[in-house]
């Protein structure tokens, strides 16, 4: 296996104007994110709202260009910013969004939605496009007669299938899934997750699965990257992360996820406080105001990702063996 995506110190800063005369503030949505994704694996990126996971998705799909760092996808360094490279990578990386109601153009028929990528990026004839689109419909578990319908006639789960069909029509190698099942009911969620697993097997896809739901991630991921306030705090193989979480934030996150067994109602790690403002992140480790293990060093120095067995974690308490 080889790395199909590698990110090195990728950062994204937004200039946000706060009021008419105030100086624009730099909002660091993603800070120095470094990670790799192996071909054919599923890397899950987990975190709460505002942790930068969606910004990372936008960077990976080249909707936005990172302000710093290097991002290499399928051997091409996209931070070089050549438009020919970006064009080539359009068919390598595709994305499925969270909201199946917002992600499909309500004025386009399903067929037109699925064919649009082909129309723009290939020279196929009308008939060829049509055939390909119908084939793709079948692959995602929809029927050919759905080709002529409008999105509003479909349920959430079916719309998500249409979105997946659109993403796959260009035969991408990498699929970025931005909370693909968060808006769906449990029973529908299950069938979409099954479909994604099947497609990955069959088409040898690499998934970058962005989610806030640790129980879904546990089902789909090979490796998990936990983000907090724009920075990766822990990267670990799934088994290691769930059996032996290292970072205090990962532990809190796991313990906060409701267990679906009433007998397991136990004491939770109660995280106090809220996510700090990204405009004004705390000095040192960004988790220190909420961390039960924080000491003086955590409040002044910033920890970097270091290896502990299969896990890479950014925490002084782990480094120093305090936890």
């Amino acid at each position, binding site marked *: 296996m080889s790395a199909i995506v590698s990110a090195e110190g990728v950062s994204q800063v937004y200039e946000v104007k706060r009021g008419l005369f105030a100086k624009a503030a730099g909002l660091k949505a993603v800070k120095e994110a470094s990670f790799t994704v192996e071909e054919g694996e599923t890397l899950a990126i987990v975190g709460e709202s505002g942790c930068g996971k969606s910004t990372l998705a936008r960077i990976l*799909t*080249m*909707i936005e260009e990172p302000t710093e760092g290097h991002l290499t996808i399928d051997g091409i360094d996209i931070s070089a910013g050549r438009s020919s490279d970006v*064009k080539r990578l*359009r068919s390598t990386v*595709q*994305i499925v*969004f*969270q*909201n199946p109601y*917002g*992600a*499909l*153009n*309500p*004025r386009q028929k399903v067929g037109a939605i699925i064919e*649009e*990528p082909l129309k*723009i*990026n290939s020279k196929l004839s009308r008939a060829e496009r049509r055939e390909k689109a119908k084939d793709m419909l*079948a*692959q*995602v*578990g*929809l*029927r050919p007669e*759905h080709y002529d*319908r*409008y999105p*509003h*006639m*479909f*349920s959430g789960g*079916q719309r998500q299938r249409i*979105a997946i069909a*659109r993403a796959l029509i*260009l035969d991408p190698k990498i699929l970025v899934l931005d909370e693909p099942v968060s808006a769906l009911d449990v029973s529908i969620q299950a*069938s979409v997750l*099954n*479909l994604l697993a*099947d*497609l990955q097997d*069959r088409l040898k896809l690499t998934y970058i699965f962005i989610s806030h739901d640790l129980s879904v991630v546990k089902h789909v991921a090979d490796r998990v990257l936990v983000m907090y306030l724009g920075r990766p705090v822990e990267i670990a193989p799934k088994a290691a992360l769930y059996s032996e979480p290292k970072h205090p934030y990962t532990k809190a996150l796991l313990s906060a996820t409701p267990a679906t067994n009433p007998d397991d109602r136990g004491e939770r790690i109660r995280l106090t406080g809220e996510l700090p403002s990204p405009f004004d992140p705390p000095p040192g480790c960004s988790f220190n105001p909420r961390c039960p293990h924080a000491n003086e060093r955590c409040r002044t120095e910033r920890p970097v990702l270091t290896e502990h067995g299969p896990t890479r974690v950014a925490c002084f308490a782990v480094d120093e063996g305090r936890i």
Partner: protein
Amino acid sequence: MSHVEADEAREGIGAGIEDRKAKVSPRRQMLKEFWYYFSENKGAVVGLYVFIAIILIAIFAPVLAPYDATAQNRGALLVPPVWADNGSWAYILGTDAVGRDMLSRLIYGARYSLTIGLVVVTLAVTVGISVGLIAGYVRGWVDIVIMRLMDIILAFPSLLLALVLVAVLGPGLLNAMIAIALVLQPHFVRLTRASVMAEKQREYVTAARVVGASPLRLMVVTILPNCLGPLIVQATLSFSSAILDAAALGFLGLGAQPPTPEWGTMLADAQEFVLRAWWVVTFPGLAILITVLAINLVGDGLRDALDPKMKRS
């Protein structure tokens, strides 16, 4: 059969999958729903019937009108309408100061008013949407320049501005229409810009960008069709204000020139007879009132029918 299909078949997914369907075709269904919401508003339905009647009158004017609109009868000056003293069945709504049949002139006038409305709205909508689309999509300084320009146009009382424009271009129906279109189009620019800005944030637009759609395609194919709802409503309401403005310009002598049977011009011609012959002013005024009211009612109904739908989809 593909692997997934086989699975789906085994689980019976394909079978259960929807058919949250459609006994009738989707377009019919949408129309039916549209009519349901539209017909909730009784005033709108009445307005629609009146408006259709006016259109029919305009189309069949030569058949309906008893006389030629400009034919003068020296023997019948200022004949009152049929129900008044001295009225005659020959001139149901009476005649004007030079002996032209009021009814015929009003019937032909409908043609002018509808043409004015149509031309003005088409002009204003085309220009307004294009400019608004660019402003809302490109943003930055282009947006600022365009919007300040529109603010300047909006800062003038609209009739005054139209007056100035006609004065520059020279009086006449065509110039009046151009002037009115120019005065009305900032409304379309603002409306388009606002909806484009809102729609641009939606995920389906991002999805089209990820696929590599060009800005032009994004603007015209992806975004624009989703902004049409409020624009249709605005277009209807502009239709009536165009008729009103054209009548006003005509009344001031800067719009259609006599002997054109345009309602506003007719009013202007009749000014001096207001006290002696009430019918020469009343009927053109009523015609304008009824037409504008009908169109505004339809516009309200459209708003009721289109707005909640916009939110749902």
